[in-house]
């Protein structure tokens, strides 16, 4: 076991980043065209990095597996992006955003990184507006804000329920400009198959053209991994179907540590599971908790009657409803952080109050009736009608809701065939985001020299739980305002290196290994589909490494996944050829990595003998079911090193977390 060097600069927290920037090495404009950088992934973190590096004058190659960089899953982010602008005059500041993020992460994030994130948050909004991102505005023409969980200010900027789409299209437009100018070469429908290391440094990748199946060697002076999170290890999640861990996992297998893999965010407001053929889950934005109230019936017989279709939620009287978040957490109410809200919903359903008529009865209501009445009355007054009729109030209230959340309500109705303007939404927690990821230092460099990791793919900013509207903030902060500086500091040593050859033994060997793993799948005479194994992995993960974990379950999970892995390699059937478009082959390669990662997640969850954020160990809770952290023994980042071709044998490295500028306390939202 060793200690990790996080390379946090000296000095007061508010000066660290500025001082660090002032002392980093630069690459002169005339030298930048001599340097190649590879960026894997074109979501917010990747597209913003590729565009910015292209603007600076580096030669950039960007890769995405989708048919266009505009499809990356950042596009599906709904609610918004945080920034400490204090436009609403409600006492917000860089310090408060920093504090809320550290507290929200249950004191398991690195202080210096989070402060920097809060510090550059304002620049992101400025940059995006300058790019023509159409954020929501008030009638006076200025930007509008709303609230998100875990905060008591309004600092979230948004574009209806499509903020991720608008930010990603902004970054995509900047990237497109660089592609048009020839400074970024875009490889769409390409998947990174392996990282190539030369003399211990990241010097390129092996990529596969997903249309022709051809393997390609691409060299560079540095490689940026911006490939997103690993929520799809659960099979069912809110991630896109193609979202995968492979790029990050390949880097891990080549020597980069993987940090806090068990920190997974289970988002409270998703549409419940409908059946066994379900392929993914759909999020209903956290922004809805600004207006919606979460409840289940107070009486078990009412819950049962609802499940059996004998009662409708609108027939349950106000006094027979249990608004359990408002009851348990009066200070934050429905806007508690995601991990807290999810566990509270699970607790009610486990007790038999769930309202969904599926196999598990798991579902709670998100009700907009109160908000419709309140906003309807306000709208009527604003129109000069101080004595509005009931019908008018409801009609105006629905109109207000439609303007704020129209696309979400429409999406809900399409999926469930229920009208959420008339009856409360049914929701339940689902896997959404992964706080863990490749370990990086303050410069976003992994434990492999020259391999940088940004956005959700790294672990750095959200601790054990991410606050809403902070993923977009982190992706763009990393790509626009952090990486371009820190990578230049690294590349300054490479101005005399010259082009990296792709005919070296290292490239040769990496390509041969990829080729062999492809052949292995195609020649396997198995009988079951890739999805068959992926679904089974997902069930193990959800039941034993999900919202609540315990020692016995985790130990079982480790063994069950080991057995599943063996069966997978023995019995998986991958149709088709290597030299054509073959989505089943693509999936097989990804699921192989998910299986290994799943094991490591269970190992990590088993070793962390405390509950914090999204990691809830049933053995460690107080009398009211709240998480019990163990700061004496677990106030560290667990960074795992891959060993002996087996995730179970990973070696643990610890990065101690020192809170110099924040007083560490029990997280309290009551």
């Amino acid at each position, binding site marked *: 076991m060793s200690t990790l060097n996080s390379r946090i600069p000296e000095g007061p927290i508010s000066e660290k980043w500025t001082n660090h920037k002032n002392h980093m090495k630069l690459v002169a404009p005339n030298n930048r065209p001599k340097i190649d950088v590879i960026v894997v992934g074109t979501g917010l973190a990747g597209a913003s990095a590729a565009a910015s590096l292209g603007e600076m004058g580096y030669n950039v190659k960007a890769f995405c597996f989708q048919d266009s960089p505009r499809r990356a899953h950042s596009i599906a982010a709904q609610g918004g992006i945080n920034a400490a602008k204090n436009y609403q005059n409600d006492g917000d500041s860089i310090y408060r955003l920093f504090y809320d993020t550290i507290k929200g992460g249950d004191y398991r994030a690195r202080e210096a990184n989070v402060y920097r994130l809060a510090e550059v948050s304002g620049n992101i909004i400025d940059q995006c507006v300058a790019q*023509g991102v159409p954020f929501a505005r008030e009638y006076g023409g200025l930007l509008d804000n709303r609230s998100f969980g875990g905060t008591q200010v309004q600092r979230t900027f948004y574009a209806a329920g499509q903020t991720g789409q608008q930010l990603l299209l902004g970054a995509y437009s900047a990237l497109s400009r660089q592609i048009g100018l020839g400074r970024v070469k875009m490889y769409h429908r390409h998947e990174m198959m392996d990282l190539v290391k030369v003399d211990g440094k990241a010097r390129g990748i092996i990529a596969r053209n997903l249309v022709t199946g051809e393997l390609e060697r691409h060299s560079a002076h540095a490689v940026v991994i911006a490939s997103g999170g690993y929520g799809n290890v659960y099979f069912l999640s809110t991630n896109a179907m193609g979202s995968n861990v492979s790029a990050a996992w390949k880097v891990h297998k080549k020597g980069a540590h993987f940090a806090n893999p068990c920190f997974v965010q289970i988002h409270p407001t998703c549409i419940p599971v*409908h059946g066994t053929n379900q392929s993914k889950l759909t999020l209903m934005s956290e922004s809805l908790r600004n207006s919606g109230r979460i409840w289940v019936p107070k009486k078990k017989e009412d819950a049962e009657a609802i499940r059996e279709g004998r009662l409708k939620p609108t027939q349950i009287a106000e006094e027979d409803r249990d608004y359990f978040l408002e009851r348990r957490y009066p200070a934050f109410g429905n806007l508690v952080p995601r991990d807290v809200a999810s566990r509270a919903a699970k607790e009610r359903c486990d007790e038999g109050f769930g309202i969904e008529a599926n196999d598990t009865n798991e579902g709670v209501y998100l009700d907009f009736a109160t908000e419709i009445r309140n906003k309807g009355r306000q709208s009527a007054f604003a129109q000069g009608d101080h004595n509005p009729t009931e019908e008018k109030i409801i009609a105006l209230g629905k109109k207000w809701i439609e303007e704020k959340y129209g696309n979400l309500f429409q999406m809900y109705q399409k999926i469930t065939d229920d009208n959420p303007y008339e009856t409360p939404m049914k929701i339940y927690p689902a896997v959404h985001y992964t706080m863990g990821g490749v370990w990086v230092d303050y410069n976003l460099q992994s434990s492999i020299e020259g391999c940088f990791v940004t956005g959700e793919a790294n672990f750095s900013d959200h601790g054990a739980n991410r606050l809403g509207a902070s993923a977009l903030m982190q992706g763009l902060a990393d790509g626009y305002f952090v990486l371009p500086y820190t990578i230049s500091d690294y590349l300054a040593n490479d101005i005399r290196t010259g082009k990296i050859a792709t005919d070296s033994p290292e490239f040769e060997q990496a390509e041969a290994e990829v080729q062999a793993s492809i052949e292995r799948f195609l020649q396997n005479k198995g009988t079951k589909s890739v999805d068959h194994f992926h679904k089974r992995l997902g069930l193990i993960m959800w039941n034993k490494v999900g919202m609540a974990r315990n020692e016995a379950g985790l130990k079982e999970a480790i063994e069950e996944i080991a057995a599943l892995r063996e069966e997978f390699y023995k019995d998986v059937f991958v149709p088709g050829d290597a030299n054509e478009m073959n989505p089943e082959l693509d999936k097989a390669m990804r699921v192989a990595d998910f299986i290994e990662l799943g094991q490591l997640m269970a190992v990590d969850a088993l070793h962390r003998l405390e509950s914090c954020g999204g990691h809830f160990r049933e053995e460690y809770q107080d009398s009211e079911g709240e998480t019990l952290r163990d700061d004496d023994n677990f106030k560290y980042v667990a960074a795992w090193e891959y060993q002996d071709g087996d995730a179970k044998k990973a070696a643990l490295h610890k990065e101690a977390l020192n809170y110099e500028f924040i007083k560490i306390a029990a997280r309290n939202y009551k």
Partner: protein
Amino acid sequence: MASKFINITLKIWRQKNTNAKGGIETYSLANVSTDSSFLEMLDQLNEQLINEQKEPVAFDHDCREGICGMCSLYINGRAHGPETGTTTCQLHMRSFTDGDTIYVEPWRSRAFPIVKDLVVDRSAFDRIQQAGGFVSVNTSGRTMDANAIPIPKHDADKAFEAAACIGCGACVATCKNGSAMLFVGAKVSQYALLPQGKVEAQDRVINMVRQMDEEGFGNCTNTGACEVECPKGISLENIARMNREFLSASLTADK
């Protein structure tokens, strides 16, 4: 909503690759839950094909929430199927009935060559964007404050409505001329409506329209099918605005 199970017949376009000759194949699929999405139904078909050791049907899809724009499909002769304002991934099997025969084809347009089965190449859209679909502002921590220029809510809302385009290509696929005017019009409009985009508005519309023509998209004859089939309800107004911008730029630009 009570879920039901239906049995259907599928007639699906199969094509090995861009240069191969394609054709319609027939498949029977039983026990499809009406709560399944259309793509989950195709997953079920592929699972069946794999279990028979046959090659599954290739189709594009990713987010399955109607926002990434990756899914496509001509279903019973309509882009994204029978519902309006809906992407294929948001179409559910409750829109079909037991015993239905469903035709599934790829987008068809000269500018969107077929890659395999139901997968087409829409990179022409990317190249149009690269020709001018941006504001030429570099990354900088020193742009002006986001609230320095107030933008009338009406303009911001209109720009947002145009920017809601997901780039799926239904407009092109459904247009008898294979025109991309709705897609390009939406992008031109988003920027033309915002002060940040006005600086380069003339060059932008000329460059984007030139690229659109080079890619082999057809012209607009005001049929309006694109607006009807657009899953995001992008308005024809955007085409009108682009035409005004283009005309004005052509008459007044320096070059």
